[in-house]
C-alpha cells in the first residue's frame, strides 16, 4: 500500500477498499459497521437526538488532540447537550491528495479511542479524495444519533430567573491552543486543548438531579456567545461574577498579550449548564467527580432584569456589560 493518499484512493476501486480495510475498518470495527450502502440500526420506540457537524481545523493536530478526536467529541457533545446517550455515528472524510497514510491512521486511532470512551459506535463512513490544494489536509463530517433520556428536557429557551449558571471547567483553552499552534504570534505558552467527550459528565448530572434547564457546549464563539444566545432565547438577563469564571493562568496570559477575551475563545470540552440554584450545587458535586469537569464552577445567575443582556460583576465589584459577540477576533496591535 502507498504511504500517502492519492486520487485513486477516492475513486471507488480497489485502492478505496484497501484504504477502508486498512485504516477505517481496522479502527472502527463493530458488528453494525456497514459494508453496505447504509448501516442498519435497531432502535426501540424512543425519542432520538440527531445531529451533524463538519470539522475543519488548521493545524489538524494540536496539543491535546487532533481533528479526529475533535470530530467525535463535537458530535457526542451536541447529543449530550440534549440529554441524549450517544449511540451511533457516521463519518465522512474529504482528504487532500498526498496526505500521509500514517497520519490518517493517527487520526483514525484517535477517533476509535474517543468513540470507545464516549460509548458511541461508528457505523458508516465515506471517503473522498480532493486534488492537491483543494482542501487543507482533510475535512471530517460526523453525524450522530443518540437516545434522549426520558427525564431530559433541556433547551436554550428554558433558562429561568433564579437559575445558577455553571461552566464545567476553565474556559477558552481550545481557541487559545489553536491560535498558538498556528504559530503566527511567536508566543510560547503551555496550553492544551480542552477537547473531550462529555456524555459521562452529562449522565452523572442527570442521575444526580434531573431538574436541568439548559445544557449547551461552548464551542465556536466561546462561553460569551452561548450566554448571549441563551439570554435571548429564554428572554432573561444573565449576571456573571467575573472572579468566579475559571481561566487557566496561561490562557489568561496569552489573552492579555493579544488583547483577547477568553469568554470569546472556543472550548471543545466545556458545557454551560443552567439549573435552579438548589439543583446546581448538587450538580457541581457530581461534576467535580468527573475527570473532565473537576474545575466546574458556578459563574453567575439568571435574573429577570435586562432580558437579552449579559452583565458582569467585575473583579473590583463594579458592573459592566459583557461586550456582545460579533466580528472576527483580532489581536490588538500595540
Amino acid at each position: 500500500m502507498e504511504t500517502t493518499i492519492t486520487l485513486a484512493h477516492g475513486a471507488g476501486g480497489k485502492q478505496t477498499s484497501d484504504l477502508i480495510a486498512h485504516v477505517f475498518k481496522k479502527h472502527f470495527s463493530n458488528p453494525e459497521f456497514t459494508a453496505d450502502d447504509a448501516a442498519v440500526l435497531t432502535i426501540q420506540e424512543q425519542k432520538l437526538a440527531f445531529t451533524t457537524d463538519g470539522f475543519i481545523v488548521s493545524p489538524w493536530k494540536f496539543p491535546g488532540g487532533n481533528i479526529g478526536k475533535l470530530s467525535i467529541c463535537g458530535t457526542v457533545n451536541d447529543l449530550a447537550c440534549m440529554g441524549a446517550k450517544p449511540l451511533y455515528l457516521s463519518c465522512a472524510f474529504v482528504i487532500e491528495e498526498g496526505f500521509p497514510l500514517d497520519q490518517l491512521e493517527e487520526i483514525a486511532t484517535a477517533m476509535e479511542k474517543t468513540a470507545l470512551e464516549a460509548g458511541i459506535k461508528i457505523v458508516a463512513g465515506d471517503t473522498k479524495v480532493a486534488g492537491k490544494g483543494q482542501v487543507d489536509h482533510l475535512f471530517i463530517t460526523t453525524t450522530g444519533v443518540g437516545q434522549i433520556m426520558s427525564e431530559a428536557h433541556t433547551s436554550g429557551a428554558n433558562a429561568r430567573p433564579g437559575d445558577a449558571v455553571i461552566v464545567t471547567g476553565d474556559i477558552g483553552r481550545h481557541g487559545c491552543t489553536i491560535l498558538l499552534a498556528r504559530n503566527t504570534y511567536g508566543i510560547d505558552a503551555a496550553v492544551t486543548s480542552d477537547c473531550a467527550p462529555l456524555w459521562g459528565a452529562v449522565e452523572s448530572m442527570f442521575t444526580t438531579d434531573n431538574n436541568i434547564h439548559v445544557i449547551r457546549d461552548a464551542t465556536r464563539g466561546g462561553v460569551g456567545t452561548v450566554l448571549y444566545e441563551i439570554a435571548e432565547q429564554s428572554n432573561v438577563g444573565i449576571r456573571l461574577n467575573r472572579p468566579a469564571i475559571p481561566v487557566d493562568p496561561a490562557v489568561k496570559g496569552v489573552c492579555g498579550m493579544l488583547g483577547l477575551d477568553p469568554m470569546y475563545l472556543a472550548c471543545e470540552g466545556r458545557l454551560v449548564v443552567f439549573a435552579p440554584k438548589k439543583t446546581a450545587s448538587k450538580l457541581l458535586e457530581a461534576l467535580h467527580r468527573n475527570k473532565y469537569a473537576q474545575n466546574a464552577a458556578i459563574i453567575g445567575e439568571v435574573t429577570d432584569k435586562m432580558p437579552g443582556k449579559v452583565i458582569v460583576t467585575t473583579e473590583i465589584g463594579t458592573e459592566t456589560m459583557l461586550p456582545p459577540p460579533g466580528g472576527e477576533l483580532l489581536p490588538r496591535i500595540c
Partner: protein
Amino acid sequence: MEQVPAKNEMASHSPAWNIITSYNGPKVRIMEVCGTHTHEIFRLGIRHILPPAIELISGPGCPVCVTPVSFIDEALLLALEHHVTLCTFGDLVRVPGTKMNLADARSSGANIRIVYTPLDAYLYAKNNPEQQTVFLSVGFETTVPAACLAVKKAYADGLTNFSLLTANKTMKNAYRALKRSANAFLYPGHVNAITGTALCESLTQEGISGVITGFTANELLTALAVILTKTKEGRPFFYNCYPRVVTQDGSKTAQSLIAEIMEPCASEWRGLGIIPQSGLKLQPIYKGFDARLRFHLPALTGRSDPACRCGDVLQGKCKPTDCKIFGNRCRPEHPIGACMVSNEGACSAYYQYGGNL
C-alpha cells in the same frame, strides 16, 4: 487552577479604592493615552466608581484611532492603482478612507493580507519577489522596532519589492499638544517599557503631569489614586507606578534600532491635525523602502464623515455618546469613524460595554 479572590474583596479593602471613591477635591481630568488602558478601564467598569469631579478621557493612544483618513486613501491608491500587495494589521482594514475602506478594496480584488508582525510582510516580499509588497506601518514606539527590523533585513537581503507606508508616531509631542486637555496623563506602560521614564519625567518642567501604569485592576486604581493625591498638592508631578516593567532607561536595543532606521518628522493625527516632530519616517539611506517615494504618491487630503467627532472625543471635548451617529449609523460592525474600529477605541469601548450602564 488560579485561586480567585472573593467578590469585591480587592475593591473594598484597597486604599486606592478609598482614595478614589472618597475624592472631593476640585475637578480633575485624567487622560489615558493607551488603547489597552482604555479597554481595561471599560472592562473593569472603573468609570462607574468615579465621583463626578473625576473625568477620564480616552486620548489618542490607539494607533488605529489616530490614523488619518489620508493614510487610508494612500493605501487604497497603492492597492487599486499600483496593484501592490498590502500587508496590514487586521484592524486597519475597517478604518474608513474618504470613499471606502481597505476591506471594500479587498472585495473588489485588491490584494490585502493581514499580518501579525511587520516581519511577516518582509517574509512575504522575500518569498514573492515578483510582487511589490507594502507594509502599512502604523503604531507607536511599541511596534516601530519590529518595522525597523523588517527594513533592516530587507536592506541586507537587497529586496527591491518591499517598502513601508509609514504613519508611525511617537508620544512626546502629542503630550505637549494635549497639555490643555487634561490635568494629568496615565502614561502607557507598554510604550514606556521601550522609551524609559526619562522622557515623561522631563515633561514636568513644562507643567505636564502623569503617572506610568500597568494594566491590572490594582495597577490602574493605584495610578488613579496617586494622580488624585498629587494633583491636590498643586505641583507638576511624575510617578512610575509600573516599575516591574518600566525602567529609567527603557530598552536601549529598541531605541537604537529605531534611531538607526528612522528619524522624526511631522505627522498627522486623526482629529488633532499635524503635530510637529510627532511621527517617524525612514532615514535617508533607507529611503528606497519608502512607499511614498517608490510609487510617487501625490499628497492627499482625506475627508472624514462630517458627523464624526473622533477628534473631539480624543481630546475629551465630548463623549462618544454626544456624537449624533454613535450607536446608530456608527457601530462596531459598521464603523464611520476610526474610534469605533478597534476594540480599544473610545467609541467602540463605550458601545461594547454598554456606555453609561
